[in-house]
């Protein structure tokens, strides 16, 4: 397993370099100065821009610029944000905890809901309950996340008044206090419910089908034959085998959460990384855009790596090639 892990991590290095090249090229294609973020987009005089470009080395050959940019990133220097007037790392650092809280809460919601719904459906297939869960699943798979988010705001925030419609924390609260954290969780609950709820569908379906398939296998028949109570068969024998494939989906989930968070955070005006990406594009703050794009690509890559590694732990056949 150790050798497998090391090999997988080493394969990542050339891919990381190629990803950085692609992000760098995108940054060059963006208008203005997307690498260092030090040219004021409000000043449009050609002399000013030319002078700044010369000063920042934006007229150097491309490979020199790339080397400078990449060295900066290895030293944790992503340039400056023109809108926020601080380092890009600081701007992102301010938002990151919110996105992490949102992701963790949505993952928990996904797993808990999928576990109970999948277990129920798998244990009682082709019953009214199973069909209703499947119906909900079809709807969840069809409804786009931004549509679901708007309906959620309309119903839960405005009609029922259970959750705040926008923002990530209430105003006038001191960070670190109990009230502050409760307000934070209260603000994150609805976006997390939408983000986590929509992913539930495929997980539930996966677990349900696996339980049904397992319940016809020989070891279940053996357990029944020796008189094991039905509840025990399902909860101990089958569930242990059926939960494994669900766990392996975890790595891929990181990738889908990243895409989902961009949309959900924007709908809820939730102050996280995704909302920062969209608002930075709107405000032409391209150094932030470059940094977030690179960060989310690396996160996706790590997610795929995790998926592979977890799979290797669960299924030893993957490890030997």
């Amino acid at each position, binding site marked *: 397993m150790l050798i497998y892990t090391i090999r997988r991590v080493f394969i990542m290095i050339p891919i990381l370099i190629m*990803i950085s090249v*692609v992000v760098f090229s*995108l940054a060059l294609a963006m208008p203005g100065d997307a690498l260092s973020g030090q040219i004021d987009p409000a000043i449009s005089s050609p002399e000013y821009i030319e002078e700044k470009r010369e000063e920042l080395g934006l007229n150097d050959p491309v490979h020199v610029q790339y080397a400078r940019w990449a060295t900066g990133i290895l030293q944790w220097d992503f340039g400056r944000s023109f809108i926020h007037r601080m380092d890009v790392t600081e701007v992102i650092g301010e938002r990151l905890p919110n996105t992490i809280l949102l992701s963790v809460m949505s993952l928990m919601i996904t797993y808990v809901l999928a576990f109970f719904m999948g277990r129920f459906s798998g244990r009682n297939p082709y019953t009214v309950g199973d069909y209703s869960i499947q119906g909900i699943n079809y709807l969840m798979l069809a409804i*786009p996340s*931004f549509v679901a988010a708007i309906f959620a705001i309309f119903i839960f925030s405005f009609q029922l008044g259970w959750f705040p419609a926008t923002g990530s924390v209430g105003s006038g609260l001191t960070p670190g206090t109990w009230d502050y954290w409760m307000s934070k969780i209260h603000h994150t609950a609805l976006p997390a419910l939408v983000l986590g709820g929509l992913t539930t569908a495929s997980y539930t379906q996966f677990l349900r089908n696996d339980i049904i398939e397992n319940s016809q296998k020989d070891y279940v028949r053996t357990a029944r034959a020796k008189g094991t109570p039905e509840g025990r068969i399902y909860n101990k024998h089958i569930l242990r085998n059926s939960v494994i494939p669900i766990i392996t989906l975890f790595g891929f989930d990181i990738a889908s959460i990243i*895409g989902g968070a*961009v949309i959900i955070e924007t*709908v809820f005006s939730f102050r996280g990384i995704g909302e920062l990406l969209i608002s930075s594009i709107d405000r032409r703050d391209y150094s932030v855009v470059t940094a977030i794009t690179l960060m989310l*690509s690396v996160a996706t890559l790590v997610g795929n790596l995790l998926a592979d590694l977890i799979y290797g732990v669960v299924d030893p056949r993957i490890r030997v090639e």
Partner: protein
Amino acid sequence: MALKQNEQELKKSAKKQSPWSIARRKLFQNKLAMLSLGFLVLVTVLAYLAPFITSFDPRDVVPTNRYTPPGGEHILGTDGAGRDIMTLLLYGARTSLTIGFVCMFIIVIIGMTVGSIAGYYGGWVDAVLMRFTDFIMNFPFLVFVIVLASIFRDAGIWALIAVLSLLGWTGAARVVRSKIMSEKENEYVMAAISIGGTPFKVIRKHLLPNVMTTIIVQATLLLAVMIVAETALSFLGFGVPSGTPSWGNMIQEARQPHVIRNFWWVWMPAAFAITFTILAINFIGEGIKDAFNPRSLK
């Protein structure tokens, strides 16, 4: 046990009918899929006949008519610019469906080409093409589409279609490749090669028809994904230019909470239209998959 019986029955009838006619019969018997197909056809027809159905112009901005509630002259009311919602819905369907279908076709062609070349030749060709596919898969799809769309913002709908297609083909290529790889082990392929068939001919005449079912199922899934992608991008302001009616642009107004709260008729029709269209496409896809699956019960 019922499954086994059914399988035997199907095997018996399979001797008389071609796989395609069995599949067609099974698909026609699937009420949900047929209902969905009917819905999709209806939406498409209404979308393209929009100028004959509604007398309003989707670009008609009437500032005095802002946020008229449904009823009266405007059946579904008007939006924040005084445009008729019903008209926007019809013209929007045209934009969203057209982009969805065009992207689907481009992606199927790219995916089919890359997948069948990689699967047929194997070896280093396969290795190079698949590493490239994996590489593109490593990028977060939506984030890259947004960044690219913001760079080519002024280039209009075709730039959007290009961006969506160029980033969206990887899954299709992988599926086609794996199908071609298992299919080419069959003896009829060896026979076709041995009588002098060129690789292009073997792929086109022998291999592709046999992986067609997989491609069709993939295509329906892609249609749904691309419609969602277009509407989501337009909603965020990176898709169809804001003057052009599209389902995503209609919901864009709901980015302001007071519109969600007070003017539900502005965003709800488009929201329902998108959801039901995707639902219908998914049911059709399920139906086709089921119809071609010899082990299915129906």
